């Protein structure tokens, strides 16, 4: 028996130690390094290991606060639009179709396999001054000059982020809606609830956990977006991700960039808590 226990322990270590080490060194350690750096200084483009809170003080200057606020707003708008667009799709897939369910599901998942860089780029072709939309508008005689605000604007960034992340909203919600107990819906119907009332009082509250997870999956990457705002955003629609990247690419101010990153993670954590709390199943509240 003891021999078997020892063997099990050896086997468990063989399975668990290498991945734990790998993730520890290449994920936990870098995150810890980032936290450490955020309390250090930069002197003449060199990182100096001297403790300071200066990086965090710089964060709350109006310039950076403004960009943080803009980014949160934009990420929330993207999340909200994804919810509005995505909910009916998840509902249709889960409850209204049997025959096309698998095919449609594959079609919703497929874009997630493709490069978000390419999906961002596609919108440059569509929204540009010579893009598909402007050409159509001009051909129809609706405008004489190309509409300039389509590309390099908050509009473009929002549209592309919704395009890229809406499947992330649909899938977790679908998983919840699909598992809904049909007996509950039957019961609501038998009790004389109309379709709207059944939806509002039964389906919607029960799908809250799916909505919460979906919102989280859209909010997180939107909050840390870098590629999309960089390519589609205008000079005025800068997002915090680009500012963070600048500290590592151009300014060599790793400590400031690290402090910003930690602030982004803190914001994500706050909203994750909010979403998940709001998403507690109605019965538990």
């Amino acid at each position, binding site marked *: 028996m003891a021999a078997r226990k020892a063997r099990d322990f050896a086997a468990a270590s063989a399975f668990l130690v290498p991945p734990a080490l790998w993730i520890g060194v290449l994920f936990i350690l870098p995150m810890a390094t980032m936290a450490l750096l955020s309390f250090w200084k930069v002197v003449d483009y060199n990182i100096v290991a001297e403790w300071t809170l200066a990086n965090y003080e710089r964060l709350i200057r109006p310039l950076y606060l403004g960009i943080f606020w803009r980014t949160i707003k934009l990420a929330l708008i993207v999340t909200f639009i994804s919810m509005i667009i995505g909910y*009916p799709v998840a509902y249709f897939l889960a409850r209204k179709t049997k025959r096309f369910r698998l095919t449609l599901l594959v079609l919703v998942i497929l874009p997630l396999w493709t*490069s978000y860089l390419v999906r961002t780029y596609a919108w440059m072709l569509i929204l540009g001054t010579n893009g598909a939309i402007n050409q159509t508008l001009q051909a129809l005689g609706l405008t004489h000059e190309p509409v300039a605000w389509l590309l390099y604007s908050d509009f473009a960034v929002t549209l592309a982020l919704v395009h890229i992340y809406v499947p992330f909203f649909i899938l977790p919600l679908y998983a919840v809606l699909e598992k809904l107990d049909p007996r509950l819906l039957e019961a609501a119907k038998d009790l004389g609830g109309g379709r709207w009332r059944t939806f509002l009082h039964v389906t919607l509250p029960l799908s809250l956990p799916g909505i919460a997870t979906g919102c989280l999956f859209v909010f997180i990457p939107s909050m840390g977006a870098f590629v999309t705002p960089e390519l589609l955003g205008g000079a005025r629609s800068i997002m915090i991700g680009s500012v*963070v990247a600048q500290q590592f690419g151009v300014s060599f101010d790793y400590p400031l960039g690290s402090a910003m990153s930690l602030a982004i993670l803190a914001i994500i954590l706050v909203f994750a808590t909010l979403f998940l709390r709001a998403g507690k199943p109605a019965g538990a509240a």
Partner: protein
Amino acid sequence: MIGARKSSTVLLGLWTALVLLFLFAPLLLVALFSFNNSEISVLPIREFTLRWYERLAANEAFRTALGNSLLVAGATVVLATTLGLAAATGAHRYAPRLRTAFRSGASLPMMVPHLILGIALLGFYNLAQIELSLGTVIMGHSVVAFPYVFLIVSARLVGFDSSLEEAARDLGAGPARIFWEITLPLLAPAILTAALISFTLSFDEVVVTFFTTGTDNTLPMVIWSMLRVGITPEINAIATLTVVVSCVMAGLAEVVIRRSRQTTVGKGE
């Protein structure tokens, strides 16, 4: 009443179709433009051509980047799949009570935006004085892909009949033998799916790569740097190629999943 129900279904179906159009039209447009015989990407397309693809094939930088991308993605698959598989099976079998804790821990890298993962790695490599290269990119990608492998394999393990393993154990088989002869074959579909996803994640990754690569470029990095200069028809061709690669991977995964469903059902009967 029945009429109203039908019409709501039709409306929802229509909405779903529109959303799918929204998801796919931009990609189709890029693909269409990649065959457009014009220097500028403008509709309507008057003449089709393959010359952008020919120009790519002759482009040394593109070929190098493609080679790098394949190398990085291949190495990522091996690393992430091995480590994710080991972690998932290990956690499932030897730490059943800690399963939730393991799952949260392993999916942590998924909750961090790639941008932050990238710069955290850059800061770490910098302090640890590790020189940036394709190797550092591979290490970063393995962290990106690891949670996906872990979650996919774990999901398969939940529906797993552990009596086979127990029987083998009672018959005196050692852990290694049980793993090779029983666990691994049963997990094959999940492992394959995980490998395909890891490949795609790495092949398309741009942000972590941006911060952790040395002088070597991968394919998305080539697109990225070309885009900063301006839109050219070659970008359409590269973009289309990467999308095709992703779709092939997704298609293969779909086949693997459907097959495994059939075999599982068959065995249950």
